[in-house]
């Protein structure tokens, strides 16, 4: 039986993960339903039937599954999303027997950054123009890693794939560390650079691409940039997982019976309540809406009631006061006192 505090943590979190068998800007390849993990977590799976656009892309079958749950013992939200695609053929140039990967993310309650890892990676019978391509995987992505830990690894300091980390775009990396092509005839045709294979009159094949930012990872098993008779992008086996932890302001009032800590001590909380009471009583328009969340609004009287009854929004506001007053090196009541004083200035 989870404790009230654990149930509260569980209700705070919104799971966010998805999987696509095919993502593309080529019109005939759009429109497949993705797997979307519900915000409440749980388990979900999807099977995509045979996918066949003759002459362009054929996939024998594909499926994905996602799971989101709160691990009480580890005090961690955990999200997993997995995809597998079998019997792929792109323009009779790139073929594979099976590709698969699992993106795992864990969000400890007391952490401000999630951990991500990539497991179960498979590129089975990957071939270019009939010749086999061997893949080696970078083991660092198999361990749960935070964004800042990843960037601090010495080996990534000069890595060209992570250059975007300095900009506001996600950093790009790959869990494919090496591509080996044994066929001499193929070696003479294609060019390999890291995880990227350039094929003349076909385009670029990026293997095991990961877009990384502190709270979001997107993995693409095979990312194609077609440059020949067909132009456009195709992503095969795309997984997304995002950190989306916050209070559910609009959620049910179940939080009222739980042990919700405001992070204020008793004296501070009493001071804030007293001053808020005074703020309402001196407010020039106590019954007119002043706070707008597109969908609902609060009057000063309703706002006070939210705090008084310790709804999830009320607790969230008290926590905000606790956090901000610490930062501003003042008592939590001080901000409310200023609001009381401001009432008299109108």
């Amino acid at each position: 039986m989870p404790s009230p505090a654990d149930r509260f943590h569980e209700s705070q979190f919104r799971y966010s993960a998805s999987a696509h068998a095919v993502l593309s800007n080529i019109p005939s390849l759009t429109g497949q339903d993705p797997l979307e993990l519900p915000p409440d977590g749980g388990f979900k799976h999807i099977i995509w039937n045979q996918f066949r656009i003759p002459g362009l892309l054929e996939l024998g079958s594909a499926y994905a599954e996602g799971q989101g749950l709160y691990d009480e013992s580890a005090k961690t939200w955990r999200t997993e999303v997995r995809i597998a695609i079998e019997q792929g053929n792109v323009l009779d140039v790139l073929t594979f027997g099976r590709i698969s990967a699992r993106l795992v993310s864990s969000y400890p309650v007391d952490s401000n950054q999630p951990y991500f890892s990539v497991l179960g990676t498979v590129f089975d019978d990957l071939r270019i123009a009939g010749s086999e391509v061997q893949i080696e995987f970078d083991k660092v992505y198999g361990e749960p890693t935070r964004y800042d830990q990843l960037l601090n690894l010495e080996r990534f300091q000069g890595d060209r794939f992570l250059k975007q980390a300095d900009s506001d775009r996600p950093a790009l990396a790959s869990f494919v560390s090496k591509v080996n092509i044994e066929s001499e005839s193929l070696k003479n045709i294609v060019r390999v650079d890291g995880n990227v294979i350039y094929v003349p009159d076909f385009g670029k094949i990026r293997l095991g691409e990961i877009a990384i930012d502190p709270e979001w990872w997107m993995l693409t098993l095979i990312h194609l940039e077609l440059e020949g008779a067909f132009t456009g992008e195709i992503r095969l086996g795309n997984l997304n997982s995002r950190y989306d932890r916050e209070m559910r302001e609009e959620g049910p009032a179940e939080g009222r019976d739980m042990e919700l800590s405001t992070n204020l001590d008793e004296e501070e909380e009493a001071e804030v309540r007293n001053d808020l009471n005074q703020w309402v009583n001196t407010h020039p328009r106590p019954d007119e809406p002043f706070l707008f969340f597109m969908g609902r609004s609060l009057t000063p009287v309703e706002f006070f009631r939210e705090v008084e009854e310790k709804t999830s929004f009320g607790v969230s506001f008290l926590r905000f006061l606790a956090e901000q007053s610490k930062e501003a090196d003042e008592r939590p009541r001080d901000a409310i006192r200023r609001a009381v004083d401001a009432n008299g200035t109108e």
Partner: protein
Amino acid sequence: MKSILILSTCYDVNSSYTASWAQELHDDLVRQKDTSCFLYDAQYLCRSGTALADMVERVDYVVFYGHGTNDSWIALPDLPGASAKVAAIPLVDSGSVSVLNGRKVYAGCCWSLNGLGNDYHVKFPAGEFVGYSDVFGFESYNEKYFKEIVHQSVISFINGDTAATIATNLKAEWDALRARFYSGNLRTRQNAAMAAKVAKLNSQRIGSKP
């Protein structure tokens, strides 16, 4: 030459504010060099055949100010009190997201980043979408500060910043507003502490696709 379509609704107190923001944005944008800008009330486009598609086809950017759910922008609200409940009518939802035709999108409404935004991203991987992952809010006495941040971010988007840049900058702008209301130069304004809280929530909820 840039072309922008602003869609807004105005049927309750919340949307009355954002509708006036849309009007001001339109008035500013039509005065900008090499820019054409159209402002429409969304309720007139939600069931008007191909009118929305025709409008979208002629613009580079679509901006929506109004109420949103996880997977729709609402054109007409529901009527829950009726004996037979009358459902809301969306302007755009998951089933009709293709009407956005890959145009760059700024969703100045609640929720639509993850649901509708994902659907948009699936349909248009090269497209760009700015929105909120949860409720978007503002405080009425200090409304102008909220409006100004939204307004400037739309203009930056239209003038070439990527959706990811807009989201990153907005996160910082909302957080800066939070600090100004709580302990900065706006701390003595009416309802400042409450406005600070709403600005913080906005900073946590803004995002983009990709």
